[in-house]
């Protein structure tokens, strides 16, 4: 269950990250950070 909640949270975070800035590198970095959080703490 927590995996799915985590996935939804990461997807929401990714959406916010993409909307929040115009910089491509910042978007990629933020998605990387979110993916890292998912990998380290939820996966």
């Amino acid at each position: 269950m927590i995996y799915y909640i985590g996935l939804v949270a990461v997807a929401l975070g990714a959406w916010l990250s993409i909307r929040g800035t115009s910089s491509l590198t910042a978007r990629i970095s933020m998605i990387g950070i979110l993916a890292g959080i998912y990998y380290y703490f939820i996966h």
Partner: protein
Amino acid sequence: MGLFRVIAWLESKRMKYLLILLPLIAIGTGVFLGIGKIDLTNIDYSFEYNSSSSGGMPSPPLSFNVLEQVLKFGPPIVLSFFALMAGGFLAVLAPFRGDREWSEGQFQLLRLSKHSMLSILLVRLTLYVLTFWLFATIILTMGSIAILRVDDDYTMLIKDAYTMFQIGFWTYGPLIMSLGIFIDSIRTAYYMKGSKIVTNIIPILGWLVIGLAISDAFQFVQGKLFDPWLFTAIRDVTLLGDTGIPMFKEPLLLTVLTSFVLCYLGSRILEEVEA
């Protein structure tokens, strides 16, 4: 050199509280280590052992020796440790700029001159690292002097500890500072649009994950990529030769490369935000 001077001036204006706090911590530590001469060495810690009545072997008073050591060397070690921790905390916070500093646009103005964002970030990194290296070295030197004043049998131990600290600092100091600069760049990219939640969460999450990822990557690269043959090869071609301390130059090399990459990514983000 001109850029270095300009950024040093800008950073000293920006971090004036930090630059007041660091000497204050150093002076306070020095006062407590040097002037507060509570001589704990004259206290008699020896206890009477009544070994004849028990009839057994007299046990060595090991625990009292430990207590004596702790009382002798505790104050300088604890004081230096806390001073270094306080300095380290400030060091971690140093690269982060507030919204106001960005809107004042000092670094953007520099960018409009002939300098690239990458060179600006690299100069900032150098400044932070040098500032905190100076602070840490002063604290460590004062701690060492305080310990040597108590007992000068520990010269070699202190020399080793000193060397280990310097290696640790140069291995992880620039890395942590460049991480701060990188995360600050991401933060900058987000507060341009005023998204407060994302802006405030980024530093915490960023430190957590990037720190873990880099630590993992370090271990992986040291284990897999740099095999023993390469270690010796690198050591042979360096001019300084073998320092006697294994795994010294390779992590340093990794740190320099990683710091450069992080600064490059940070500068790319800032350039894209400006565009």
